[in-house]
Structures are given as structure tokens and as C-alpha cells.
């Protein structure tokens, strides 16, 4: 076994780690080119990304886009619950402490108003095929409140029997909630796990005993909900390769149908709660790369199929099947087999995607509540998607989701030779008229995709 003698003195044991890292990297046939990974690039959960949103798009544009939707359009809905029982330090999501019951109740009332408002604007157009609950922690609200919310969506939007997915905090996940989810036909669940190593949990402010995860998984499976995703993280403070390895082994033993392995992004200037994380204790770029490689090796060895750059799914999972059939898409929740182009977001900070436009709701909960309770649409910023942007978005999506794109896409590169450096190192190759990201190129996928991003290259030319 790769790491049987790895010491646990943390990330700073350079002599042992260096040898181990390069061994590991060789095993997965990934090569480490730090110069190619130096520039930070977005995760591209949308294109353009949220950075490009501005206040020139807002309520009027949303109303118009809703009005222009053809009848029978397949819809995906997203509902944001920006509350957690306790806040983890690494989290960049829009959330806050749940606090008093009244606060949650008031927010739910606002959500219900927004649902009714958008329902009126839609006027019966659109068929809801997918509903996703995210946050924060959707299970910060009670089971009854969840069912009521779902019921309201079902009646206002004539939702029939859509696919429903819910993000959950395993801490405080009750059997009542499991019952409510099973009875309301929730098919897919995502658990926030991150790490099982106690000292890492301490360092990120998320103490979560393994038993909580086990219990949650059992409760869900007992009730027939067995499409379960674990969110895991690497690059966490005090997290060694062994810490990650042990977490992976334990996770694999529970055999969730999906695992998402995200790299921690430390941005304390932008995300105030991350200031509680000691920047001195973070894995450096090389260790992060090795951790990502370890994740890939462990999970693929265990029978998971790698999807895109950070998702892994069992072969029987719908995402793995979609990958085989070239049907993987990308949305705010990551890689998905949900093909729906039209996404309506509800709640503070929720993002909507309609033909030709991306829009985002007011982030501040108080302002969001006063807007929707006075019958005002809550979208306050966004960006239009013109034809060129749409094409570039399709290329980026194809590279990230299918690992390849039509060779003709290189017409959209700022310079013809910009791919050369990736080609030389065999991170990308040409095959059957396509540009294909090789297995070795997988860790570089986002960087390769960003070459087609007109907003990045604009920034660079401006900076030059």
C-alpha cells in the first residue's frame, strides 16, 4: 500500500513527503507542471462566471425572459436555504447561523411568496422536471417545513413527479427528515463530509463524528434513498496525504454512489469566515496536486468512474452512465446528468439561467425578504449571453464535461499556438478531428478550458 509508512507530522515533513509525492504522481501518470497551474482559474459552474454579473441585468430582464419561455419548456428549480446550525470556517457559500426559529420561518414565508410570484409570471408555462434544494443546509428547516415547501412548489408549478435532490448536513439529520424525504420522493442526496480526520475537522470548524455519517447513510438507505453523494475536500489546513487517504478509505467503505472531491480555495480577503483558518497550515501547491492525484488513484481503483475534474461515480450511477453516453452537463452544483437549460433559482443569492441570460437574486436575506414580500422580483444582477459567449461556453463545457471538443474550436483561441505548450506535454492531443484532454491532462482541464474564456484573456491583455 502506498502510504503505509507515511508519518503523521503533518504537511511539513519534506523529506518523506517529497519522495512519496513523486511516487504517487508517477503512479497515476499525472505530471506536475506548476507553471501551467500557477494562474487561478474559475470552476466554470457557469459561463460567463458570476464575476461577470453586473447590475445592468435584473428584474426587468427576468420578467421578460420568463414571459418568453415557450409553453412546455423543461424546467429545473433550485431552492436556496441560507442557514446552517453551525458555520464551518472554510465555507464560501451564502449562509448564516440558523439562530431563532422565527428567522427561518420568516425566510420560508419569503420563499413561498417568491414561488407564488414566479408562478404567476410563468402563467402555467414550463414543466418542472428537476428540483434541487441547496444551501447552507436544507435540513436546517424542519421536515414539515420541507414538505410544505415542496408541496407549494408542486401545486404552484404543477410539478407532477420531478426528480428531487437535497443537500444535507449529516449532523442533526433526523429519521423524521429521512422519512419526509423518502415519502416525498427525494431521489438523490448530497452529504457534506469534507474529512474524517479529527485534527483537520478542528482546523476547519466542522466537528462531525464518523457515526453521524454512518447513521445518515443507513437512515437514507433504509428508506430506499440510495443515490448518495459525499462532498470531500483536499487542501485543508493540517491535512496530510495520510489524512486524505484515511478519509478516502473510510468513505469508500460506505460506498456512496458519488464522491465529489473539491480543493479548498483559501480566500480570506473575500470570505471573512475563512480568516479563522490559519493560512500557515495549508498544503502547498505540490501537496495539493498530490492529494488530488491520490484521490483519483484511490477512487478509480475502488471502482469509481472519474467524471470531469472533481467528480467520481459508481458505474451504476446515472452520472457515470451519462458520462459514457456523452450527456454530462455542468451547473452550479457541479457535474450533473440534468440536461435542462432553464434553471429558476429561488431564495437569497440564488442564480437563474434562461435562454441568453444569467441572473442572480439579492444576496442579503433581509433585502431579499422585503423585495419578495412586496411582490417584487428579487433578481438584482446578471449578464447577457450573446452568440459568441454561448459558443465559448459550449466549448468550455464540452472540455470539462466530455474531456474533448471539436478541433474547429481552436478558431476561438486568442492565438493559434497557445495550446502548443499543453500539446507538447501530452496533456491534450488531436484525434479524429477533436481536441482531447488526455488522462495526464485531467488536472489541467480547467486551465485548458480557460484558454477559450474571452473574459480571462481580456483581463490578461489589459494587464500586459
Amino acid at each position: 500500500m502506498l502510504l503505509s509508512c507515511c508519518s503523521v507530522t503533518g504537511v511539513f515533513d519534506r523529506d518523506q513527503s517529497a519522495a512519496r509525492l513523486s511516487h504517487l504522481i508517477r503512479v497515476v501518470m499525472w505530471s506536475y507542471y506548476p507553471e501551467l497551474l500557477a494562474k487561478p482559474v474559475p470552476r466554470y459552474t457557469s459561463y460567463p462566471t458570476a464575476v461577470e454579473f453586473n447590475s445592468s441585468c435584473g428584474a426587468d430582464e427576468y420578467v421578460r425572459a420568463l414571459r418568453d419561455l415557450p409553453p412546455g419548456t423543461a424546467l429545473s428549480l433550485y431552492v436556496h436555504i441560507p442557514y446552517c446550525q453551525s458555520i464551518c470556517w472554510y465555507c464560501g457559500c451564502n449562509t448564516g447561523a440558523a439562530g431563532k426559529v422565527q428567522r427561518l420561518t420568516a425566510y420560508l414565508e419569503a420563499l413561498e411568496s417568491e414561488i407564488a410570484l414566479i408562478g404567476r409570471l410563468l402563467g402555467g408555462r414550463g414543466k418542472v422536471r428537476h428540483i434541487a434544494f441547496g444551501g447552507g443546509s436544507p435540513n436546517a428547516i424542519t421536515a414539515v417545513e420541507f414538505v410544505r415547501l415542496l408541496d407549494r412548489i408542486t401545486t404552484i408549478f404543477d410539478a407532477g413527479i420531478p426528480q428531487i435532490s437535497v443537500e444535507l448536513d449529516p449532523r442533526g439529520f433526523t429519521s423524521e427528515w429521512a422519512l419526509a424525504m423518502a415519502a416525498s420522493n427525494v431521489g438523490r442526496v448530497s452529504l457534506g463530509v469534507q474529512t474524517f480526520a479529527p485534527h483537520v475537522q478542528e482546523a476547519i470548524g466542522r466537528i462531525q463524528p464518523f457515526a453521524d455519517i454512518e447513521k445518515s447513510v443507513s437512515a437514507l438507505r433504509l428508506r430506499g434513498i440510495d443515490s448518495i453523494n459525499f462532498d470531500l475536500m483536499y487542501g485543508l489546513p493540517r491535512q496530510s496525504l495520510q489524512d486524505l487517504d484515511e478519509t478516502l478509505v473510510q468513505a469508500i467503505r460506505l460506498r456512496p454512489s458519488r464522491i465529489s472531491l473539491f480543493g479548498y480555495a483559501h480566500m480570506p480577503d473575500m470570505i471573512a469566515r475563512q480568516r479563522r483558518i490559519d493560512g500557515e497550515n495549508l498544503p502547498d501547491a505540490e501537496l495539493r496536486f498530490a492529494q488530488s492525484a491520490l484521490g483519483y488513484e484511490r477512487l478509480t481503483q475502488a471502482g469509481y468512474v472519474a467524471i470531469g475534474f472533481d467528480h467520481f461515480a459508481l458505474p451504476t450511477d446515472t452520472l457515470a452512465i451519462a458520462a459514457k453516453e456523452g450527456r454530462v452537463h455542468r451547473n452550479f452544483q457541479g457535474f450533473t446528468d440534468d440536461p435542462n437549460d432553464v434553471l429558476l433559482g429561488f431564495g437569497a443569492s440564488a442564480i437563474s439561467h434562461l435562454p441568453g441570460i444569467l441572473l442572480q437574486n439579492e444576496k442579503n436575506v433581509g433585502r431579499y425578504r422585503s423585495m419578495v414580500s412586496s411582490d417584487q422580483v428579487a433578481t438584482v444582477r446578471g449578464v447577457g449571453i450573446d452568440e459568441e459567449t454561448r459558443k465559448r461556453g459550449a466549448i468550455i463545457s464540452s472540455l470539462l464535461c466530455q474531456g474533448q471538443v471539436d478541433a474547429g474550436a481552436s478558431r476561438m483561441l486568442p492565438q493559434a499556438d497557445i495550446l502548443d505548450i499543453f500539446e507538447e506535454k501530452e496533456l491534450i492531443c488531436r484525434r479524429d478531428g477533436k481536441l482531447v484532454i488526455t488522462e495526464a491532462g485531467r488536472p489541467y482541464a480547467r486551465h485548458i478550458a480557460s484558454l477559450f474564456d474571452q473574459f480571462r484573456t481580456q483581463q490578461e491583455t489589459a494587464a500586459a
Partner: protein
Amino acid sequence: MSDCFTCVVRNRAICASLETDELQLLGKLGRNRTIKRGETLLWEDDPAPVVANIIDGVLKLSVNLQDGREQIVSVMYASDFIGRPFGKESPYRVTAMTDAQVCVFTRSSFDNFAREHPDLQNKLLQRTLDELDRAREWMTLLGKKSATERIATLLIELSDRLSVDGCSPETLYLDRFELPMDRQQIADILGLTIETVSRQFTRIRKEGIIELPDRRTVIIRDRPRLKALAQVA
């Protein structure tokens, strides 16, 4: 304040599991209202959203679509709990289809009470799940079922829900009952025209599945065939 101890649906309503002292407390939170057929139920002097127990009568729950049309989301009977909060600008409207009697609570006071009484909380969850199921079934009915299937579904439901003995916790399947609503109301509920409703009634009668001795009375002669028509599983 409600007198729970003489309540006709005491054994079947959501509060059925409560002990005497708990019932007394709950009764203080609830308010008894009598409404006439056609009246919209609201607790006027309290702007908070409300939930309600139906003691007697038949009520409909509806939403207004953008084009002004009313879509009936649910028909509810004695001992049903209307758990979808309505009032205070919520989109649901509750209207009496017959003269009715209800027991009304603000949502917050009912929910708070339930939180302290786990048994009631369980029942609340169960009833809320039932409402969700019925909403889905209803959408399917309106979206997919033929006129005949809709009428048959309603007749089966009415015979199940209209019980002679209000106190009994058991459901009696009635083979003879009075329709609590007229043909026009049936048409509204099922999303059909009144002509179609009349035609379907005649058709089902001619097949010997039901008898219609008068405008309001229905006698079910062949329940299995009626169920088959309704596509009841």
C-alpha cells in the same frame, strides 16, 4: 376557543392522539368557525397564515393562475387537516362547497404546539405528506385522466370520504351517498364542462355501474368496475 371534547371528528382528526390535558391546551389556540356554502374561509382579524381542521362539510383549496382562472388543488372533507397555510397573501384560497364547520389555528401557534407534542408532530408530518401525495395525484388527474376517469375517481373518493358516522375512526365505504356539490361544482373541480359531467354520469349509469335516483343521490352498484374506470391501483 374550541370545545374539543364534543367535537364530531375528535377521533379522526389530526388531534386524535392528544390526551385530555393536551387537548384542552390545543382547544385554547383554535377557533371554531361556521361558513356558508360559497364563502371563502379566512380568519379576518388575524393577518397570520392559518391552518384548519374540517369538522363538517366539504371545502376546496384553489390557486389563481395568471390568466385569472382558478385551479382547484384539493377537495377536503370532515376530519381533514388543511396543513397548507393559507391567508395573509398566500396563494391558496379555501372555499366552502357546502355549509361547513372548521377549527382554525394560526400556523405558528399550531406548529409551536406540535413541536412540543411529538405525537402530534408526527401526525402533522404525515398529514403534510398526504397533502403532497394528493397534490401529485390531482395534477396527474387533471393532466392525464380522461373525463370518465375523472368522474369515476371523484365518485370513489366521495364514497370513501363521506362517512355516516363522524365519530368513528374507521372508514366506512358508502354504497349510497348524497353528492355534496352540484354538477357545476363537479365540473369546476374536475376541469370539465358541465355538459361533459352530465354526459359521463349518464354513461356510467347506463353501464349499470351506478344508479342516480335523483339529482344528488348516487348508488354504487359495481364498485370494482367503478374502480377500474377510475384507474385506481
